[in-house]
Structures are given as structure tokens and as C-alpha cells.
């Protein structure tokens, strides 16, 4: 196990003022357990304070720092130097912004635009099921929740959307579909028909190629493809619609 690594980072840059794109190479020596967000900070401190990148919580809970490293979408806060060297078998890393939204500058994308697809599926309860008693919580057992609870862990980092092989522009993408599927499976949601209409529209599950790339890259290890497969199987038919 090395103590330090001599790394080469090739970072895709973009200047919105001149509309110029280029690749910039940085050489840095870094300790084995530094994370890639620490490397970006190190570049800002020691070499290039102008390099722009995104992060917030920096421990895998918010999904702000997603980038592509050597082609793989991942969270920069979760990738340690020595793991990256081992996984990719190199000390040279090409880092680019996720291709899910327009780039604003360097590694910062306009993620709000990608979120438009999540907004489209209405990530909330559209029409509440009747309550047995007003002012009370719904009664839902762990067994009832078990089939969908894993899907509620999604942080909308858009790594899955970036890895998805469906190239259709209008496609909702895996994470947006997941947000809708959660509410289709949630007994508190009454409005299933509107959800199914979006899910089975020409922007929905029919665009999925079942490559399972989404499950493969998900930093939260959610089996996204499984939930999409349920939708493809027609598991959320309107018979659960009680009106």
C-alpha cells in the first residue's frame, strides 16, 4: 500500500464567458485516503483557485458532487485516491461533468434543468387516501413498506441518468421514474392513474433498454432497474385504484 500517489487529473473545463471548452491537466501528489473532493480543493488552494466544482454534504447524502471519472458516474466525495487507483488500474483520471444537464462552468452543471424530469412525475402525494381518523398518522406496516422503502433512499445525484444507455431525449430517466414508482407503491397515494399515464407515456418505461446500468452505478446501491422492471411488468395496474 502506497502512502502517497502522484496523480494526473485531466479535467474538462468550460468558460461560459468565452464559450471555450478545453481539457486541463493537473499533476498532484496526494495521500491515499483523500477523496476526489479533497483533490479539487487542493487544486483550488495550490494551483488553480478558479476551477469550479460542486459539493455540499461531502459524505454521500446529498448527491451534489456527481461527476464522471474515467467514464463512470459517481460521487466525488465517496471516491478515495487509493480505491480509484485500484478500481481503474491507473493514476491518471479524466474527470468530466455529468451529461444530464448543460454545463455552466467546468464541473458545474445546471442540475435544476435535470430536476425538471423529477418535477414532471410529481414527487409528492397528489391525492391523499382517506384517513381512518383525522389528526392521526396512517397505519402502514413494515411489511407493506418493504417492497418500496429502498427506492425512497434515492438522493437524485443523477448518476443513473448519466449511465443510462437510452439516448432518447424525452426519456424521464431512471431516478425520475423511481420517484413516481415510490408513490405508486405508497398506500397513502390515491392518484395512481395520472402516475401510470406518465410512466407508460412515450417518455416513460418503454424507453428503458433494461441494461441495468442504473443499478450498477447507483451510489446508494438501490436496484433501480428492479423497480423499473416492476413497472414494465405492469405491477402497478389501476386495480389498486380505489375510488
Amino acid at each position, binding site marked *: 500500500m502506497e502512502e502517497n500517489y502522484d496523480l494526473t487529473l485531466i479535467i474538462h473545463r468550460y468558460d461560459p464567458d468565452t464559450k471555450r471548452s478545453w481539457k486541463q491537466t493537473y499533476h498532484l501528489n496526494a495521500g491515499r485516503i483523500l477523496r476526489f473532493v479533497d483533490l479539487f480543493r487542493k487544486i483550488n488552494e495550490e494551483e488553480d483557485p478558479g476551477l469550479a466544482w460542486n459539493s455540499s*454534504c461531502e459524505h454521500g447524502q446529498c448527491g451534489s458532487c456527481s461527476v464522471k471519472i474515467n467514464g463512470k458516474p459517481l460521487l466525488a466525495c465517496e471516491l478515495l485516491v487509493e480505491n480509484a487507483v485500484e478500481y481503474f488500474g491507473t493514476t491518471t483520471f479524466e474527470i468530466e461533468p455529468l451529461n444530464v444537464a448543460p454545463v455552466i462552468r467546468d464541473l458545474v452543471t445546471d442540475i435544476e434543468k435535470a430536476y425538471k424530469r423529477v418535477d414532471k412525475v410529481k414527487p409528492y402525494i397528489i391525492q391523499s387516501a382517506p384517513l381512518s381518523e383525522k389528526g392521526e398518522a396512517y397505519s402502514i406496516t413494515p411489511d407493506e413498506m418493504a417492497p418500496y422503502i429502498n427506492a425512497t433512499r434515492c438522493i*437524485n445525484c443523477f448518476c443513473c441518468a448519466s449511465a443510462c444507455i437510452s439516448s432518447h431525449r424525452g426519456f424521464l430517466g431512471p431516478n425520475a421514474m423511481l420517484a413516481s414508482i415510490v408513490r405508486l407503491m405508497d398506500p397513502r397515494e390515491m392518484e395512481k392513474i395520472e402516475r401510470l399515464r406518465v410512466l407508460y407515456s412515450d417518455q416513460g418505461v418503454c424507453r428503458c433498454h433494461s441494461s441495468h446500468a442504473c443499478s450498477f452505478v447507483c451510489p446508494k446501491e438501490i436496484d433501480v432497474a428492479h423497480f423499473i422492471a416492476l413497472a414494465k411488468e405492469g405491477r402497478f395496474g389501476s386495480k389498486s385504484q380505489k375510488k
Partner: protein
Amino acid sequence: MSKTLKIDSTIRCDVLIVGAGGAGLRCAAEILERRPGCRIIALTKVPHPQKSHTSTAQGGLAAVDPKDPSDKNLFHMFDTWKGSDCTADQNVIKKISEASWEQIVWLENRGMHFSRDHEGRLLKRTFGGHTIRFGESPAYRAVFEADRTGKGINDTCWGETIKRGICFMNQTIATELLFNGNRCVGSIVFKQKEGSFVRILSRATVFATGGIGQVFKVTTNCRQNTGDGLAVALRAGFPIMDPEAIQFHPTGIVGPGILASETLRSVGGILRNRHMEGFMERYAPKMKDLAPRDMVARAIETEIREGRGILNPDHRIEHVWIDLRHLPHSVHEEQIPEVRGFFQKYMNIDPKTQLCPVRPSQHYHMGGIPTNEFGEVQTAFQETVPGFFAIGECASASFHGFNRLGSNSILELITMGKYAGERVLNYMEDADTDLPDEPAEATFSQFSRYVENRGRENIGKIREEMKSLMTENVGVFRNEEKIVRAIEGLADLKKRAGNIPLSSESLIMNQELVERWELDNLLDLSMVIAHASLNRRESRGAHFREDFPERKDAFNHHTLASMTEFGKVNLGKRSVNQCIFEAKEKFYEKFGIIERRY
């Protein structure tokens, strides 16, 4: 040649909310539920509201279930009062505790995925300091959503706001408050993506900008928690209440700073120094590693300070070890899987066979912009500022006093968010809409200075020096000599910050420009924290003075610290509300000035 900064446009709205985490979103949802069509603009510095720091809260949400035969609101109020070291305001404690269960139901009904028991009811767990019958036994009072309770709150409130129609401005910061006379009428904001300054005129303005964790070297807080709202309020002449009240968790994981929970010690983990000595035996011969949070934090700091710590070469952070190697396989697998996962993920360490590096990590700021129990901001003279509200971690009402109990912070977010929302609606009934065209002079002189500064300094380096200075001198241990050293150091850093050149004058997504602004915010707040710490010549809750280790009755009040010129701090007081004690009802004596012993 520097650019001439200008206001690109003026936008009018009913309510401007600055910060879109749990408190800001809950406030917006309340307003929109009560008044559909209300025009709310909510700003967030992060790329999207879902990326807010609230999302990282793990544990739970304290609330007394009216159906629970053993628990009562009064017990929760007592625990909060005692935990605060007699410095929380009892009117606020009462208001928040009594509304707590209703708020849980509100979240559940709107789709939060709370963990359940086998009968389908909300599951509850215990948290340190929460008891029934005034300390008799632990209370099962915290509802939770697995280890992602904050995410549940944030996602649910965000969903409600988009359902009802809100305008978000992401990656946008508020740089200056606007006033018409004494009435707050909005803010100048800077939209990072467009690189444009906008004047937002609003009938009411709510600050919900979050914490200050980045003042310190190791923190559980997000990169974005740079105390912006506090600094902007400070520059507008408002005080910060109890800036010195800062909570440190004893065992943060070196690197990301995240918590290695207390569970590690309760299942038998042993803290060791560089000589492999189990040092807690020296500090707490009986309790050893199970001693209270603040005592453990001070023991770890002492070890580090006296040269028995270990330096992590990669993060350049000194730490001690927590030894979990002797624990049975079943404990690793069943009782501490999450924390084990953190060590594996961020340190490449297997706690079964390797020592784990930990050190005290800044966790929460009890202090903030002073408000009353409705979230209305108060001046240094305790007058309410019309149109200006503050909620969440950036505010201090004060629910937590000088020490916050676990699971009380996210409860505060949602209840104060709701109360402020109600109050905003009432206020707008008679708020005049006569809004002036303020020129934004303060913002422009500040930002053009950043662009014009020349020299050889670097933002990141000065920020790191500040964090070390504050961690070493105004952190877990404080004394006069150290605090004075910090004040001198901060003055020097502020001067050096004037020699930071920006590599680009562009305004579009210029991360450096925003970080330069954040650095000023951090330096200003650090200065206020240091002065308030110096002035409080006693120890109380999380504020520990080595030279004055006891609590003193002479300090039974809040600090109000103002600073309009860097380094010139004015200190005032606000009395602690003791309405429960004064009402003289049953058990009122529990709400007097009591000892904080567990």
C-alpha cells in the same frame, strides 16, 4: 479594469425565503397551504433544495405522542431546559414541545416514510438526555425515518412546496437586506448561474440560512454552512445571540467530519492515545468511555494538546483512536454496521482489525439571529423588526440555550418554520407595500473590492488558517489567553484577505468570488464568537472556559453581540424567559436554575 456592478432587475413578491432547507421549506409550505397563490421566492445557495444540510440529519425527531401513557410534554420541556444548562427560553420550549406531535402527523400525512412497528404505528427510539419523570428513565420519544430522518423532512417539505407553487432560485445568495425605515422589504441577491445581481422586494423576508460549521477545522456540517445569513444580519446592524454557544460532538470521523455515534462507546469501544493507553480511565475513573459528551470531548482535546494525539498525514488532522477490534463479530455486524460502513468508505479502515481515527467535530450552533417565539427578529434593544423573520439553525429563539439535545434540532426546524409561516401571513395583513428602490451600495462596494483586490494570498489557505485558529483557541477548550490569541489572529487574517486576487473577473458561476464572500462571513462570525466567548467568564453547556470551569448565576442571560466594524464588538444581554417557572404550576420548581448533572 474591473466591471461596473449593477442591478439587473427588480422582482416583487409576497415572501422572500433565504435558505431552502427544512425550516425554510416548512415555512413556505405553511404559507402556501393557508394562502394558495401567495408569491414566494425561496433562495438556496446549493444547486437544489434537496441538497440542503437538513438532508444529512440521521437520528430522529423528538415529539411527545399524546397516546403514550408514560410520556408528557412537561417531561420533554424539562429535559430541554436542563440540557440547555438553564439558558433556553421557556416560552419557546413550551410552544415547540406542545406542537411537536401535530408536526409529526403533518409530515406523515404528506408522505414522509417514517419507520414503523409491526402494527403500523410510528416507531420511537431513545436519545441522550430525553427522559420521563424528570430524569427517572429514558424516554422513547424520537420518531425517525431509518438513519435519514432529515432527508425525509426535507423531501416532504420540498414536495409540498412544488405541489403548491413556489419559485426557487437555486445557487443564489442574499448579500444585503433592504429596509424602508425600520421595515425589512427584501434583499439584494446574487444569482451565481447568471452572474447577476437582482433586487427582490418582498412584503416579508425570512432567513433560514443554516449553520456555521465551516468556522472549524472538523465539522459535521456541509461545505455550504458558512453562516451567511448571520453575517448579512450582522452587517445590517443586528446582533447575534449566544454566538459562543457551539456544540462539539466528541467523536467525528477524521476526513468528512461525520459522526461516529456514541453507540461505538456504549457497545464497548475504547478511546486510545498514541501510546495505546485507554486514557478515559484517567479522566472518568468510573464512567470511563461512557462519560458524558462534553467530558469525552475535553479528554480527547487534552490528549491531543499534550502531544498524545496522532497526526493523519493525508488530512493533516490530529486525532485519537477508537479501538473496536476486541468487540465480537456480532457487535460489528449487528450493532454498528452504519458507522463501520463510514470508516470503511471514507478511511479504508476495517474496524474489526484496525484502529479508527476520531476527534471532536463541530456539530451545531445553538446561537443565531435573535428572535421571539414566533420567529420575528429582534434588534439589540429587543424590538421586533417588522417584516424580518429568522428560523432554523441560523436563528436563536432560544430552544436549545447553551446545549442542544439530540433530536431537538429538526423538531425546531419544522415547528418554527410553521409558526413563522403563520406569523408572516398575519404580518402581511397590514404590511404596506410601499417599497423603495434601494441602490445596493453595500453589496457593490463589497463585491467590487473582491474583484479589485490584488496580492498573493489564497482563499483556501486563509480559510484553513482560520479554521485551525478557531479550533485550537475557541473550540472545545477556551481560556482568556487563547481567545485573545484568536482575536489577534483573526484581525491579521482579515487584513491578509484584502490581498486575495481573483483569477477571473467573470460573474458567472465564479466559485472563487462566492468563496471570497463566504470567507468574509466566516471571519466576521469568528470574531463575534471569540469576543462573546471572552466575555462569558464562566462555563455553561457547550461553552467551556478552563479559567472559569463553573457556571455562574451572574451569567444567567443570553449574549447579544453586534459588530458593524470588524473587530469592534458590542456586547449586550437578553434575559432568559422562565415563564413555566413563574407560572408556579405543578412541578414548576423543576424549571428553576437547576444543576445539569446526569
